[in-house]
């Protein structure tokens, strides 16, 4: 079977798109401790924690560069445990897709289509994402390469247009109202929200240059964090610290303030456009990787067979969820569940796998040489 190839740049763009989709939706960084003018410091510190949290995954990714996360877990833990872990990651990706479908449906309904029923919004969203996901990883990579520069340009353009609304004094005093502990708790929280790194572990076999795994990780982390810092600073300096925390979509609220001599105003629809593109990209990615995971758990070569099934499950669960509650407005217990699952998926399982790898590396080498 021909393996689809993606370039390092495409993967970097893909990870950036996934991360900023969340940042520009509800900016979790604003609400994590200390929840004040030092949020940008929290994000910078989170760089360190993200590296620490993701290091087991990165190490294993480098060791098993011809295998996806699901495949090397099976190799390390054996068939039964390996498949259970694979199933866990499949569920994790499905839940991720459900979460983002619910958020995007809510965003679309609040900002634009106030009276359209959720089943219609969600249906069209899932159909679009399902179609793109069925085209494979190459299309995902090319899509990211095409759309992410547009998304970033629009965001920077909006920041420039709204620059007169920013009051940087809001960010003062620096690191005086927060403690070292608060900054670190916030940074750890943010680091565990960077679940998008899991897609790197799923996409490694498709990389054109497998030696660049670390480079991809650090570059995508740096660029995505820089964009998130921009979003946080802009939201806080335009709305004030407290009002930014009140807002469900702080950056969106900022775009609504843009007004230049009554000529350039009401341009938030441009932002909504790129917002939807980035979210659709993210949902597509999660649907694809969920399908890929389950196909590898079941040892089937064609992930496309599962895309319809996964999409249908995602559609039903997200519809069930958003018709009963608001995902954005009332974040608990979903946020806590997501955090626990993220810690398990990103850190605990890879850490155990890493320990197992060190114990079993000789046996593994004897069985089958690992291709680097």
């Amino acid at each position: 079977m021909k393996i689809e190839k993606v370039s390092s740049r495409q993967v970097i763009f893909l990870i950036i798109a996934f991360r900023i989709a969340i940042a520009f939706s509800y900016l979790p960084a604003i609400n994590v401790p200390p929840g004040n003018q030092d949020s940008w410091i929290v994000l910078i510190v989170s760089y360190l924690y993200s590296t620490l949290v993701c290091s087991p995954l990165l190490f294993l990714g480098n060791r098993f560069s011809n295998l996806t996360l699901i495949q090397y877990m099976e190799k390390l833990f054996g068939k039964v445990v390996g498949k259970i872990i694979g199933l866990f990651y499949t569920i994790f990706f499905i839940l991720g897709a459900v979460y983002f479908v619910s958020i995007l449906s809510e965003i679309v309904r609040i900002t634009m289509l106030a009276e359209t029923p959720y089943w219609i919004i969600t249906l069209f969203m899932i159909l679009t994402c399902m179609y793109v996901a069925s085209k494979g990883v190459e299309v995902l990579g090319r899509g990211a390469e095409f759309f992410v520069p547009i998304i970033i340009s629009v965001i920077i353009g909006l920041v420039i247009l709204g620059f007169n609304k920013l009051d940087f004094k809001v960010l003062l005093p620096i690191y005086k109202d927060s403690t070292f502990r608060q900054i670190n708790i916030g940074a750890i929280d943010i680091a565990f929200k960077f679940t998008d790194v899991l897609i790197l572990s799923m996409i490694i076999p498709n990389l054109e240059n497998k030696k660049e795994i670390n480079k991809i990780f650090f570059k995508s982390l740096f660029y995505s964090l820089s964009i998130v810092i921009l979003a946080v600073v802009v939201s806080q300096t335009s709305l004030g610290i407290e009002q930014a925390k009140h807002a469900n979509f702080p950056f969106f609220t900022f775009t609504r303030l843009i007004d230049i001599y009554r000529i350039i105003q009401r341009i938030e629809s441009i932002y909504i456009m790129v917002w939807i593109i980035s979210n659709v990209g993210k949902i597509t990615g999660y649907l694809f990787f969920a399908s890929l995971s389950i196909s590898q758990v079941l040892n089937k070569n064609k992930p496309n067979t599962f895309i319809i099934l996964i999409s249908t499950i995602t559609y039903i669960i997200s519809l069930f969820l958003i018709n009963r509650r608001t995902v954005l407005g009332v974040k608990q217990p979903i946020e806590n569940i997501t955090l626990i699952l993220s810690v398990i998926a990103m850190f605990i399982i890879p850490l155990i796998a890493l320990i197992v790898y060190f114990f079993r590396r000789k046996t593994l080498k004897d069985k089958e040489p690992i291709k680097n």
Partner: protein
Amino acid sequence: MSINSKKVLLIILIILMSIFLTSCWNSRELNTLGIVIMIGIDTEDDEILLTAEIINPTSAERDMNVPMQSRVRYVQGTGDSISDAIRNITLKLDRRIFLSHNKVFIIGEEFAKRGIVDFLDFLQRNNEHRETSYFLVAKDSKAYEVMGVNGGVNNIPGGYLLELVENYEHNGKTRSLTMTEFFKYYYDKSNQPVLGVVKSEKRAEINKVSSTPSNVDYFLNVEGGAVFNKEKLIGYYTGKEMIGFNIIVDELKRGIITFDTPNGYIDRLSTTIPPIEGDVSSTKAKEHGVTSVEILSSKTKNNIEIVDGKVHFKMKVDIKGGLAEETGDIEISNREVIKVVEKACSEEIKKQIELVLKKAQKEFKQDTFSIGALFHRKYPEEWRKISDNWNNIFSEMDYTIDVETKIIRIGLVNTPSNRIKGR
């Protein structure tokens, strides 16, 4: 699949998409909307009374035959909350209220005194309403009493009031605060919000024959500022005090400062017009001349210090201005004279700043200038200890005001009109 089948499938897909993607669910046709451009909020009988000015599309066009008042309609709704009151309007109006073009919110004085923030939640929450609409307090009246007054040339009263509010840039005697800005100040622990005001005033009788017996005899005045204690209205700043206020918060864009012409300098080059025998006015003008300086730019640098355990506020104001008017007996083209005028202007600005600072300290006993935020930035450790008691500390705070004025324009003439330059 053959190429023809693909084409047929594509055409079917396009037709299906055009059917499904018309956003019919959310269609809002113009002929079903009541486009609101101004809203007034009052309390009556413990209920919210909401008055909305709605464009009457059939006569909003610039037709001279259409009376000004029929270009808009006024509808009222009552309810226990703002959303309830808005929804109740649809019981009386044949169109759905559409808030997206609303530019101005007028808050009735009684409602403002009761406290406004809990009811403003709807406006923050509702995505149709814009965060950029202005908030004003109807001074000494209900909100609906100032609505419908159009003393300007704008077609509709809402547009007229909006223009007045946005004239803020040319006149520092008021303040235009949007909803987002109001909440920024509201959430700031060290600061109390100051909103713009609006008052309906009767016009002096001019050309009585042609005027129609309607509220064109009235005009609106947005001079002054409404001071809130977080969410409750507690008093007002006058127009003059607002100039001082705007200088302190460094928001003054333009404005006129008028002061007595300094008499300390006698020009040797020019000669005054000799007074006509028995005419008191020319002599009086000479003695009590006034100078008006137009502020072209204003920059305020605020600083705060702790001196002997007491908070000391320091202001450095740099004003660049142009001589707008001179009725006094001085020679403007002389550099020394200009310096005297600059000094006198600085003194007047200082007085206006002191006026508003004293009022805030002694009458309102609260910080309306974000001086607490300045203290917080400079002394974060101390701020934690005193933040809850900040208003008391502010009331006892000492201050030093240093104003420097530079007159960089003198207009088209160099000598006041009441003087003869002579040799």
